[in-house]
């Protein structure tokens, strides 16, 4: 079956602009995670959605970052007023439930000029 997909694959934006990153999880997966991977770094947890529960936003680095998940499926990560330090690869992963095995998308590479 189809895996996790993310769009766009690459995004170049100017400092101060807003960006939206999209994630389509595997069908039937109730859990969805967003991570940020900066150059040469590991994965930084951003936000977690599980079913209809309130999301765990504890990893969002500032109030410029927000995410939503519509209908328990597609998720959008929004970064407002982008800064150069936001440049990174943003990875989305889904799992059947909770901390069952995560399946990752290919990521969105964001460059803020």
């Amino acid at each position, binding site marked *: 079956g189809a895996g996790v997909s993310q769009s766009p694959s690459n995004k170049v934006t100017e400092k101060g602009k807003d960006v939206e990153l999209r994630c389509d999880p595997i069908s039937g997966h109730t859990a969805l995670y967003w991570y940020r991977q900066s150059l040469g770094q*590991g994965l930084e947890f951003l936000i977690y959605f599980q079913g209809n529960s309130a999301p765990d936003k504890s990893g969002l680095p500032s109030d410029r970052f927000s995410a939503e998940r519509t209908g328990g499926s597609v998720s959008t990560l929004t970064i407002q007023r982008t800064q150069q330090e936001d440049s990174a690869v943003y*990875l989305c992963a889904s799992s059947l439930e909770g901390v069952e*095995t995560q399946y990752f998308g290919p990521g969105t590479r964001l460059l803020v000029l």
Partner: protein
Amino acid sequence: AQSVTQPDIHITVSEGASLELRCNYSYGATPYLFWYVQSPGQGLQLLLKYFSGDTLVQGIKGFEAEFKRSQSSFNLRKPSVHWSDAAEYFCAVGAYNFNKFYFGSGTKLNVKP
């Protein structure tokens, strides 16, 4: 606090040689344990996982890992490395009471011909 440590940032091995990548974790109970591989420009692919049972687990591409509770370790091994194994490897802990994953900072593997 939960954490995952991969002490080796870079490792170089010759093709055909054996490989061991180290992973230590800090968690208050027996965690779910994972190894992922990331090839350049790609998302993360699951190599293997440990939830319970036999502490030696087999994965894809000829990899295996052994969970050692007494050492809080989950080291990844491969008896004979192939040039296509050159990638970055991430160890992760699934903390089921927090519904979060914690990733190590990764080990970059270089394979010499």
